[in-house]
C-alpha cells in the first residue's frame, strides 16, 4: 500500500462489501439516523432568548394554563442539526430529475424566494389600512392581468389557496350563476373517468351529483359521449385539458359548444396548463372556469406538499360572481370586501378564506412570469412538450403506450402491458428508480390505465439529463424483461428506508408520539 511521508495511506486499499460493515450507530456516513424531538428535547430548554416580561396584573381571568404542555425545546445548534439531518432524507427537484406526472416539478428559482421576502411583500398585514399597501394591491392586479392575458379570460378570482380550492371556487361560481338564472335544479356534473379525484370530490362537496363520462380508445373524451350524457339537469362538465393521459382534447371546442347549447358550464381543470402556456388559450376554446396551480405552472415551490395557490380564471358568463375580496383600480387601488361598494352586475358569491389569498405565492409567480416574459413562457411550454415526447419516442420500443404512438403534451403515459409475466409491477419498477437516483413518476394514475406510469420531465431538464434518464429506464426495462426480479421486488435498497409497511400504519394508526410507559408498569 502506498503511504505519504507521515505514514498515512493514500490509496484506496482493499475494498470490502459495504453491506458486510454494519456500523455501531446504524448511520451510513452522511446518512444519519435521527431521533424524534420528543426523545432528545427537554421542556426546560429553549433556543430562543426572550427578555423577562414586565410585572403586570394578569388579565387572563382564571384561565391561565396550569398543566404542563410537554413541548420539548432544543437549543439552536440542536435544532439546526435535527432539521438538516431530516432534510438529507428527502428528494427534491434540486436533488434530481423529478418526473412526477401531473405535478409539474420544474425548477424553483431562488430569485422568487428573494422577492417574496422583500419586507414590502412578506412583512405586511392583510388588514393594514389600504392606503399603506398600494404596492401589494398593484402586485395582485398585475398578476391577475398576466393570468387573464395567458388564458384569454376576462376575470379571475385570486383568493383560492390551492388547486382543489380553486376548483371549489370555480364550481361555486357556476352554482351561483345557475341560481341567479333560476336554474338551481341543475344538479348533475359530468366528470370523465380519467379526472383527478379532486374533481368529483369538489362537485359532491357542494351538493352536485357526479356522473361519469367515458374516455375513448384514443385517450380523449368524444363530443358524442358528452352529448349522450347531456340532460336538462346537467350543471357543468369538469374536464382536464390537456387531459390526465397527457393528450390535448381534440374535440374540446365541440364539447364546449354542446355544453353551452345545453345551458351548462364548462369547468376546465388547469393542472396541465404548463403544456400550453403561450400556445393556446382556454378562453379561445370555450372554457368558463379554470383554476391555475401557481405551484405547478408558475414554479412556486411545492414545499413538501404545500402551500399552493389556485386562482381561478372566469369567462364573461361567470365574471360577475368573483368572490370577496377583489382588487379594483380607480383613483389608486382599492380592495372590495364584504359591505364594499359594488358596481352594476357584480354579485360576489361569498368568501373562500380569511384575508386575500396566497400573497407569498403571488410574488413568486409574478417573478417567474417577469423573468420568462411572453417569449420565454412560450418557449418553456414548447420545451416541456418536446422533452416529454423525446422520452416517449426513446422508450416506446420497450414500454407500452396505452393510446398508441401519438404525440403527447408535456407528459408521457405508459401502461404495464409490457411488464406482463415479468413478475415486476409498476410499483416495483418505481421503487427501483429510487435506487438509480430518480424520483419515481406518477403511478397508478390516471385510474383508467392499468398500472399507469405518467412521466412529466418539465422544461427544466437538459438534453444530457434526459439521455441519462432514458438510458436508465431502458436498462431497468430490459432487466425486468430478463426476469431480474430481485432488482425490483426488494427495492429500494439504497434509500434511507426500505419499503414501508403502509398496511400496518393504517391498521393501528400511531399519529403522534406518546411518552413510553415506565418499564415496571408496562410489565404488569
Amino acid at each position: 500500500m502506498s503511504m505519504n511521508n507521515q505514514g498515512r495511506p493514500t490509496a484506496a486499499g482493499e475494498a470490502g462489501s459495504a453491506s458486510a460493515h454494519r456500523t455501531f450507530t446504524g448511520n451510513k456516513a452522511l446518512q444519519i439516523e435521527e431521533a424524534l424531538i420528543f426523545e432528545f428535547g427537554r421542556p426546560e430548554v429553549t433556543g430562543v432568548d426572550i427578555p423577562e416580561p414586565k410585572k403586570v396584573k394578569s388579565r387572563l381571568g382564571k384561565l391561565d394554563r396550569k398543566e404542563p404542555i410537554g413541548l420539548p425545546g432544543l437549543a439552536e445548534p440542536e435544532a439546526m442539526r435535527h432539521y438538516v439531518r431530516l432534510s438529507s432524507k428527502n428528494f427534491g427537484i434540486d436533488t434530481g430529475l423529478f418526473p412526477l406526472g401531473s405535478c409539474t416539478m420544474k425548477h424553483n428559482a431562488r430569485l422568487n424566494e428573494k422577492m417574496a421576502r422583500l419586507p414590502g411583500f412578506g412583512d405586511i398585514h392583510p388588514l393594514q389600512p389600504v392606503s399603506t399597501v398600494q404596492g401589494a394591491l398593484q402586485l395582485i392586479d398585475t398578476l391577475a392581468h398576466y393570468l387573464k392575458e395567458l388564458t384569454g379570460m376576462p376575470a379571475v378570482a385570486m383568493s383560492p389557496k390551492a388547486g382543489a380550492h380553486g376548483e371549489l371556487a370555480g364550481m361555486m361560481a357556476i352554482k351561483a350563476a345557475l341560481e341567479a338564472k333560476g336554474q338551481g335544479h341543475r344538479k348533475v356534473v359530468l366528470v370523465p373517468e380519467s379526472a383527478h379525484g379532486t374533481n368529483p370530490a369538489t362537485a359532491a362537496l357542494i351538493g352536485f351529483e357526479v356522473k361519469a363520462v367515458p374516455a375513448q380508445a384514443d385517450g380523449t373524451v368524444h363530443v358524442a359521449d358528452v352529448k349522450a350524457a347531456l340532460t336538462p339537469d346537467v350543471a357543468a362538465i369538469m374536464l382536464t385539458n390537456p387531459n390526465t393521459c397527457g393528450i390535448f382534447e381534440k374535440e374540446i371546442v365541440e364539447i364546449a359548444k354542446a355544453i353551452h347549447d345545453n345551458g351548462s358550464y364548462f369547468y376546465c381543470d388547469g393542472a396541465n396548463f404548463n403544456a400550453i402556456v403561450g400556445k393556446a388559450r382556454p378562453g379561445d376554446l370555450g372554457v368558463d372556469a379554470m383554476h391555475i396551480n401557481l405551484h405547478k405552472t408558475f414554479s412556486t415551490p411545492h414545499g413538501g406538499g404545500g402551500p399552493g395557490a389556485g386562482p381561478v380564471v372566469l369567462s364573461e358568463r361567470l365574471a360577475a360572481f368573483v368572490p370577496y375580496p377583489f382588487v379594483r383600480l380607480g383613483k389608486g387601488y382599492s380592495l372590495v370586501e364584504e359591505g364594499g361598494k359594488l358596481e352594476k352586475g357584480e354579485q360576489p358569491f361569498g368568501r373562500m378564506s380569511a384575508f386575500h389569498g396566497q400573497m407569498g405565492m403571488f410574488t413568486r409567480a409574478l417573478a417567474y412570469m417577469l423573468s420568462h416574459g411572453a417569449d420565454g413562457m412560450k418557449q418553456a411550454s414548447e420545451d416541456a412538450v418536446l422533452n416529454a415526447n423525446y422520452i416517449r419516442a426513446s422508450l416506446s420500443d420497450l414500454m407500452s403506450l396505452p393510446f398508441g404512438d401519438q404525440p403527447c403534451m408535456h407528459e408521457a403515459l405508459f401502461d404495464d402491458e409490457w411488464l406482463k409475466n415479468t413478475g415486476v409491477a409498476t410499483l416495483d419498477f418505481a421503487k427501483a428508480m429510487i435506487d438509480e437516483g430518480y424520483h419515481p413518476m406518477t403511478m397508478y394514475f390516471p385510474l383508467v390505465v392499468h398500472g399507469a406510469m405518467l412521466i412529466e420531465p418539465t422544461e427544466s431538464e437538459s438534453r444530457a439529463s434526459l439521455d441519462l434518464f432514458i438510458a436508465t429506464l431502458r436498462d431497468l426495462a430490459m432487466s425486468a424483461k430478463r426476469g431480474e426480479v430481485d432488482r425490483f421486488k426488494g427495492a429500494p435498497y439504497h434509500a434511507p428506508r426500505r419499503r414501508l409497511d403502509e398496511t400496518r400504519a393504517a391498521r393501528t394508526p400511531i399519529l403522534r408520539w406518546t411518552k413510553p410507559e415506565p418499564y415496571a408498569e408496562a410489565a404488569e
Partner: protein
Amino acid sequence: MRYLPLTSDDRTDMLAKIGVAAVDDLFANVPKGKLLKGPVDLPKAKGELEVERLMGAIAAENISASEVPFFVGAGAYKHHVPATVDHLIQRSEFLTSYTPYQPEIAQGTLQYLFEFQTQVAMLTGMEVANASMYDGSTGAAEAVLMAHRVTKRRKAVLAGNLHPHYRETIDTVSRMASDTILSLAPNPVDAGADLKAVAAAIDAETSCVVIQTPDVFGNLHDLTAIAKKAQEAGALLIAVVTEAVSLGAVTSPGEMGADIVVAEGQSIGVGLNFGGPYVGLFAAKQKYLRQMPGRLCGETVDAEGKRGFVLTLSTREQHIRREKATSNICTNSGLMCLAFTIHMSLLGEAGLRKLAAVNHANACDLADRLADVDDVEVLNRTFFNEFAIRVPGDAAKVVEKMAKKGVLAGVPASRLWPKDKALADVILVANTEVNTDDDRAAFVAALGASI
C-alpha cells in the same frame, strides 16, 4: 432564457428523434385556428436585476410592519421569527420536494409532520391532529363539515364574536352545500352574553357550535360549561384560536372539553405575508379520527424493521374515495407546517410560555397606559395580547390619521363589520413581543392627537 437548458441544436436533434419537422407538429390536436401564432401581449423576458428593480419598486409602495410602531392583529400577528427558521425552510430538500407519496425518499418531510402533529395535539390539549390545513378559516369550515358527518345533522351555530372572515368562509361553503348556519350578533362589551346566546341557540338539529377564544375582540372564554351543554344536546364544540401563541398562557380548548380545535398557526414561525400562505392547525378527539379531513402522517416500520413514517388513512381522501371523500382537499400547508414546527421546537415549553407572558404583559401595559387617555375606553375584562377600544367618532378615520402619523394602530371594527353602526367606534389593538415601550408611547401620543 436562464431557466431553460435546451439549446437550439438540442431541439433540432430531439425533433428528429421524435420524427416530426417542427414543434408545432406536437400540438396537432389543438383545434384549427386555436394555436396562437405569436407571443401573447405581455412584456419580454427580463434578467434577474431588472426583475429585482421592478418588484423592489412595487414593494417600496407598502409600509411594512417592522418600519413603524405596529399594533394590527385580528387573526394575523406580527411576531419575531428566528433566523434559523427561514434558513431551514429554504433547504432545497424541503423547499423543492413534493407531497411524500414515496416515503422511502421523503422521511424528512414525514418525520417533521409526525412531530408537528404531536406538537399541535399537545398545544391544543387534544388527542390527535392532522398534518395541517390551508389556514385557520378554511380549517374552521372543514371542522363544521366534519361535525355534520359525525352527528349526521346539518346545522351549525356560530358565536357572534367569531372572526367575520371565518364566519363568511363557513357560511359560503354551508350555503353552497345547503346546510344551515345560525350566526349570532357580535358583542364586544359583554363577552359572556355571547356564550349564553350560543347556549340558548342549541337545539336538536344542531351539529356543532363554533366559538373563538380569545375571541375576535380579544376576550377569553371558559368553554367548560358550553362544551358540556353542547355535548348533552348531541352537538360538538368546535373551538377556534386565531392567535396560537395564546396557548402558551391560556388553558387549552382541549382541557375545557372541546371536540375539535382549529387554529391559525401563523403566529409561530410564519410571517405576515399579507394574509397567506399561513398554516391551519386541526386537532380532534381520537374517536372522531376517521371523519377528520386532510392528510395524516403515521408511524410504521420498513422491510428491515426500522421505524419510519408514511401518509396514512388515505381511504378518507379524494384520490381514493373521489366523490365520497371526507373533503376535496389534496394538500396541506407543508412548508408553513415546517416553519411552525421548527419555531416550536426552538421555543419549547419554556420559551413558548415566556413568549406568551411577554405578549400578555406588553398588552396589559398598553391597556394601562390607555386608561389615562381621555374619551378612550378599553372594552375587555379579560384578554391575552389583543383587546378592543372605543374611541370618540369614526374608528376608521382615527386609524387612518394615526397611520399618517406613522403608527399602524390596529383594525377598525368597521373593516370587519362594515354595516354594524354600533361597532363604528371600535378598534382592535394587538400587542406582541415586537412592541417596545417607545412603540406604546407612540401609540398613546398618536391616538391622543387623532381623536
